[in-house]
């Protein structure tokens, strides 16, 4: 017999591969044959140590939905990954031919994924769901709206406000029910603390590149959105690269970080990537920081199961709303983020997918989830749940959701956000607000294109 040559060996290898194909197909999914129950896959992120609140929520939702709808099976698909890898995986799944039907995304990335064609508009379903129109705050409906179509249902949100230490305020002779009515009143309180209470950082406003999105959202945008100007003009879809409000906000940052009368933390804290942890786990519980413009989630850090348990926090820390620049209407400003569930554009069972969302987002199920995750409810009637309103400060935060604003969730935003941080860092290092703004303006033009930017006086 002839010895097998290279070509015969190659041939048998290919033949073997062909034989394996049906085997692989046999392992595939056969549930899409039209009859029998439809399986709706729900994808969400799961990371870090338990408890997994999404899983608990969806498990109870699954039981309820499958009992009420014999034609729907719910399959949970936790994606175990950190936030960056979660989106990479999710985006790859959404562009495949067999995507999950219901997906959880940061409301802020919905816009990018709509542009990419991954998500389906939900208006026709939401219009027929009276609960949504009546109970979701208008702001929570707007946050998932992109090109005047709604692409998601928010499961919870967060807001930003001013935390202040009442003990330090007492020492400085300031009222413990403090509520500033303008930027000037925040700065004057900080100056008073600097003069009367030595060894304490008067105020923290996240700023500069190292703190990344916290600088932009908790820092700069809390200021900018309280002026007459904004970052993005939704009317003509252009980025506002230069405005009086932008300059005023930079000047506020400049005054906080003015080295000759420093109100903010020193550089080693402010310009480090761990500033967020330093503030919440060290400076505030140790009574070294008087005023902090920060997120509603801060309290969770100091609860018994948080990273820095601090039993006295409820008595020590006061909360005030962030005022607009000179107290202009609506008097106060806050920003929100949060996550939403959407339906994949390639899902073959959109009707059933919406049925799943609708049932999972019922008052009691969603309410339980928001309570467990320390999230601010996007549904107005959750406030009536006694466990929810018993959470410290939650009624206060929920009332802010009424006038909350959000970031322009467009693909260019992450890059522009870095440019805002860089403008903040420049004024911290002594550059004038005018110079920092013109540098910002140039960068935005090169990121978004000069036809997509405009300058306001």
């Amino acid at each position: 017999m002839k010895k097998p040559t290279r070509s015969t060996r190659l041939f048998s290898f290919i033949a073997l591969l062909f034989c394996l194909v049906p085997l692989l197909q046999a392992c595939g999914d056969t549930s899409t044959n039209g009859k029998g129950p439809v399986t709706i896959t729900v994808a969400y992120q799961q990371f870090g140590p338990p408890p997994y609140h999404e899983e608990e929520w969806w498990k109870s939702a699954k039981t309820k939905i499958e009992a009420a709808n014999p034609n729907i099976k719910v399959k949970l698909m936790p994606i175990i990954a950190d936030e960056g890898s979660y989106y990479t995986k999710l985006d790859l799944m959404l562009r495949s031919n067999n995507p999950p039907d219901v997906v959880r995304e940061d409301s802020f990335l919905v816009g990018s994924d709509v542009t990419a064609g991954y998500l389906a508009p939900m208006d026709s379903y939401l219009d027929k769901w009276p609960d949504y129109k009546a109970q979701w705050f208008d702001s929570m409906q707007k946050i998932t709206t992109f090109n005047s179509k709604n692409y998601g249902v928010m499961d919870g949100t967060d807001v930003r406000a001013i935390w202040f230490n009442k003990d330090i305020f007492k020492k400085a002779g300031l009222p413990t029910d403090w509520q500033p009515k303008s930027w000037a009143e925040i700065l004057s309180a900080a100056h008073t603390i600097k003069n009367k209470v030595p060894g304490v950082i008067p105020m923290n406003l996240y700023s500069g590149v190292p703190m990344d999105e916290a600088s932009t959202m908790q820092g700069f945008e809390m200021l900018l959105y309280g002026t007459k100007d904004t970052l993005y003009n939704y009317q003509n879809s252009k980025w506002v690269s230069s405005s009086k409000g932008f300059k005023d906000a930079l000047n506020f940052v400049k005054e906080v970080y003015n080295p000759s009368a420093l109100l903010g933390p020193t550089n080693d804290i402010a310009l480090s990537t761990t500033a967020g942890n330093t503030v919440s786990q060290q400076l505030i519980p140790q009574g070294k920081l008087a005023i902090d413009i920060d997120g509603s989630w801060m309290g969770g850090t100091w609860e018994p199961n948080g990273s820095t348990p601090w039993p006295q926090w409820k008595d020590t820390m006061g909360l005030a709303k962030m005022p607009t620049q000179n107290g202009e209407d609506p008097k106060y400003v806050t920003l929100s983020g949060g996550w939403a569930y959407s339906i994949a554009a390639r899902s073959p069972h959109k009707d059933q997918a919406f049925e799943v969302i609708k049932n999972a987002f019922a008052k009691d199920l969603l309410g339980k989830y928001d309570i467990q995750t320390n999230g601010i409810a996007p549904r107005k009637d959750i406030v009536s749940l006694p466990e929810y309103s018993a959470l410290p400060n939650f009624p206060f935060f929920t009332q802010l959701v009424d006038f909350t604003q959000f970031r322009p969730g467009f693909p260019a935003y992450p890059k522009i956000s870095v440019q805002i941080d860089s403008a903040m860092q420049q004024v911290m290092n002594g550059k004038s607000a005018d110079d920092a703004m013109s540098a910002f303006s140039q960068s935005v033009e090169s990121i978004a294109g000069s036809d997509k930017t405009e300058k306001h006086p």
Partner: protein
Amino acid sequence: MALTGVGADTPQFVGFDNFVHIFRDGEFLNSLRVSLTYLVFSALIGQAGLGLLLALLMRRRNIVFKSILGAIIVAAWVIPDVVAGFVWSAFLAGGPQSVLDPGLLNTIFSTFGLPRHAWLQEAPMTMVVIANIWRGTAFSMLLYASALESIPQELLEASSIDGANIWASLRYIILPLIRGAIGTDLLLITLATLSDFTLVYVLTAGSNVNTELMTIYQYRQAFQFYQIGYGSAIALLIIAAGAILSLIYTRILRVDL
């Protein structure tokens, strides 16, 4: 190619557009400059230079001295990058008027009555260079030490009889004989330093444009801004830079690796 946004809906083949764009991208050119500065000061001058010096100094010392010094230097090389980063950020912590506890360096400074500094914020590039020298010197030192062992003692003795001083014997005997080791070392540390990410990212997160290495810039483009195509193009350029430098070394030192 992008994972989200318009680019994900209609992926297009852009040919060399990404590369053309890169060379007009000020931030990329900045990161190239940062990477080369980091390479020259921390790897070529710092690790290779200091490594050679230490290897020469440790020659023919007594075994106790050798093993203690060796252990200290090698310890820096053994610990993981992330740990090294945290060790350095703890060492450099604190600053003037800071309410936080000062790090070891600032404690030493104030003990001697010198002013404190926020080291990582005031001189980030110098600090990452020093940290990387501390970290990588051991590798070069070990490599040179073994090369020096192989130099026959008679050659050095003969040269000293001929009246060669220490510089002359270094220049004409030691360096030519360990040329191969120098070539290998430069090649390896260049490639390692060009692809370095963790140490600098832990210390500064590339937050200061002065410490944004090419690798950090690439990471941000690909995974923070989801521009996978552009990020890949940068990655290819990093490989190209490493390849070009490797060729230059082998050419200059005329070694066969």
